């Protein structure tokens, strides 16, 4: 049972806004250390045929922060996330990761670089148990081949035991012990979302991408999920980039927010800055006529 009141915890750090872009790292009001830039998007443009989904967008993600991408429907948020995860290759612009330019690569190579994600429309193995699903997240950490894994001797055995332990710790962390052996297809939506998060965490990512982690949830499930996202960031120091519709949640969770509209970036900054940005207000509420 979680104390849900904690979401209002002050995660904003107004005041020293301009300083932080120049420094390597700084400490937030609630005592977390935000490190240097880990991923940078430089002038990204993405087209699908004649449609420009993303137009010349640049922003960065710092180590240890919770970075949100928000925007109305069709703004290009999911496309942006797919660019980050390497699934889409932009026609123009560069993706810099850990201080080097990232060449176009296959999704599994991106995963090996320490980036894990969840999906907007849950993409779990429905017929498999929760535990097995979480174990698939350990794939990039397994070195033995299919042959020795089948024999389950020596190194393969040790490896599985180690990986199972990591998986179990994550199951414990997300409090899904009770459904460990339940097939995913039998779970309600909110729990499936949590299992997906568990699988992504099992990869022990440096950067975790969450595509609408709270879509379709009720208030209680949202509060739980918010708490888990904060806990993941806090306990494992994982950098998190997330897309979310629920403005209240975004404003409470994130350190910095990118706002997109029609494929363009219309705002970038702390939740406080973004909330007071006239362009953002217009995009969300329509232009005021006073």
């Amino acid at each position, binding site marked *: 049972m979680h104390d849900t009141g904690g979401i209002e915890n002050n995660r904003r750090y107004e005041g020293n806004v301009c300083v932080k872009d120049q420094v390597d790292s700084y400490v937030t009001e609630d005592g977390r250390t935000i490190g240097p830039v880990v991923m940078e998007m430089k002038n990204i443009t993405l087209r699908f045929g004649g449609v420009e989904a993303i137009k010349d967008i640049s922003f960065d993600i710092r180590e240890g922060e919770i970075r949100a991408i928000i925007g109305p429907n069709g703004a290009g948020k999911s496309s942006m996330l797919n660019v980050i995860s390497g699934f889409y290759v932009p026609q123009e612009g560069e993706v810099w990761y850990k201080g080097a330019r990232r060449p176009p690569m296959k999704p599994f190579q991106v995963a090996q670089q320490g980036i894990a994600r969840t999906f907007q429309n849950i993409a779990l193995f429905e017929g498999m148990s929760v535990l097995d699903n979480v174990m698939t997240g350990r794939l990039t950490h397994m070195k033995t081949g299919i042959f020795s894994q089948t024999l389950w001797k020596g190194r393969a055995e040790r490896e599985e035991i180690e990986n199972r332990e990591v998986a179990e710790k994550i199951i414990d962390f997300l*409090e899904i012990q009770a459904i460990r052996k339940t097939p995913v297809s039998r779970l309600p939506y909110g729990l499936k979302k949590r299992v997906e998060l568990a699988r992504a965490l099992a990869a022990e990512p440096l950067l975790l991408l969450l595509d609408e982690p709270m879509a379709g949830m009720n208030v209680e499930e949202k509060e739980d999920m918010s708490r888990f996202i904060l806990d993941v960031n*806090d306990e494992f120091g994982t950098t998190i980039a997330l897309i979310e519709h629920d403005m209240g949640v975004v404003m409470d969770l994130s350190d910095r927010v990118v706002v997109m509209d029609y494929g363009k970036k219309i705002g970038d900054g702390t939740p406080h800055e973004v909330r007071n940005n006239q362009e953002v207000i217009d995009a969300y509420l329509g232009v005021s006529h006073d």
Partner: protein
Amino acid sequence: MANIEASGGQPASVPALLRRNAKMFADAPAYREKEYGIWQSWTWRQTLEEIEALALGYLELGLNEGDFVAVIGRNRPALYWAMMAADMCGAVPVPLYQDANAEEMAYVMNHCGARFAVVGDQEQVDKILEVQEQLPQFERMVYLDPRGLRKYDHGALHQYSDVQDMGRKSRDRHIKTIEAVEAKLDYDSTCIMLYTSGTTGRPKGVVLSNRNIIETAKSSSEFDNLKQTDDILAYLPMAWVGDFIFSVGQALWVGFCTNCPESAETLNVDLREIGPTYYFAPPRVFEMQLTNVMIRMEDASRFKKKLFDYFMAHARRVGPAILDGKKVSFADRMKYHLGELFIYGPLKNTLGLSRVRVGYTAGEAIGPEIFDFYRSLGINLKQLYGQTEATVFITAQPDGEVRSDTVGVTCPGVELKIAENGEVFYRSPGVFVEYYKNPESTADTKDAEGWVATGDAGFIEDGSGHLRIIDRAKDVGQMADGSLFAPKYVENKLKFFPNILEAVVFGNGRDECTAIINIDLTAVGNWAERNNIGYASYQELARHPQVMQAIQEHVEAVNASVAEDEMLSGCQVHRFVVLHKELDADDGELTRTRKVRRKIIGEKYDDIITALYDGSKTVSTETEVTYEDGRTGSIRATLEVRSANVLPVATKKLAAE
């Protein structure tokens, strides 16, 4: 070390027993806990080492003899050790209910002046920090699960394993103190203090000595022939006396293994994996299990349902007799074996009760159908009557004399007497020492000769010598015409229906009885699903006409059954409402052990009760509710007042004879 022995050469304190077990059962498992999906176990020798390390750590942190150590959290070996380690230092462990809110905790911790607290996780740490300012004597807190606590100020906050490490390092300095303390501990020194759940008023601290704990553990283990190889599952609140007796008292005396589940949600899986041989559950748990079985059988295929019904009918007929070792024909026995193969065996396995040798239920009356269901499966489920002040055991049912309507014969060493007003009194070696800092209450409850008032009204049945409990003595009242009013008796009959979760009957000093009823969302919800009845909320389901009709039929069935009892036929329910919200401990309507707080409900729903008696057809009411996080809100509803058929009270003259 700990040489003081009681008569008969047995160890006279909890630490002494622990040392005996570490020698006698050195490599046998003492505690198990499922963590990260795997059962971890500790032998008696390891357990002693863990406890001693913690006790040494306590001393390093400055715990003194006679201090109180609050222990709060779900059942985990480390928390049981925290209690025993306190005993080892000559301090007194005080387990608290983990779901108590911060104010309730503050009251108890202030009352005993706890200097130390050992807690399970962040939730409990937060609660104590919230009320810390009200606790002038409180100094240090030790926590078990470090999750979320990394950034807390660790000035007076310590991680459990760190305290143990501290203890191991400072062993040379403090081991002499522990030896000296243990040498002083005897039968009369305090072993534990438990707070009563507070059905009425503020909780009282019941002081239990080593004599209470050890004598009770000894006689009750002998009564049921418990063995060192037994397994129990520890899942009931640690603040409840029964858990301490089972998981610490009897476990230490007999040397059996205490198993702790992974979390409250995984209980059913863990139960199945462990397969306890000695099992204890309140009637509510058995009820819930039975409801679940029945719901799932409703959804089963027709063939399976037929098979189930056929063999269950047979089990009901001969099962209890076979269990009691009575004469049953050969053919019936063979058929029962067949049933065991197809139905009873797999069902017991699913429930995790395959290995149960001795099972107990207590705390509330259990429905005869529920009780018989388990017994017919061949599970040796028995009833027990006890209370904190008696260190649990007052009466229990011996094997072969088990019935659903009595609570058994007196346990070894217990004497019983019934006062003129029907109240049950007892005297035993388990009788508590005193209520802490409350001599008036102690004197009210326990007289100079050691007789303790139970507060329950009952009688000893002629012939069998079994005790039968009617109701709480203070709840037993009189109707306006002078006939007996025993609300609990009627409520229990109502609650035996799976659709009814809770019922509160009113009528003291009035002409007629009325009732407020809570539906059981699981059972009624499933019924609604099967009958294509849509509902959006508890409130909507509760006032559905068909639900109302079903409840009315239940009430009328109860009336018919109550009418048969000469003494209590006046207690038939004339009118009732189905309440729009579940009675909840957070709203103060139930105690933490989920007993009805009659008086508070009476005051809170005054408007509904008025409507029950003034003949109105509906009543509009607004109720304040408290959410889990402490916020409050209110629910508004219009409830229908229904009248139920009652049978004429013609038997009254008989009662007067």
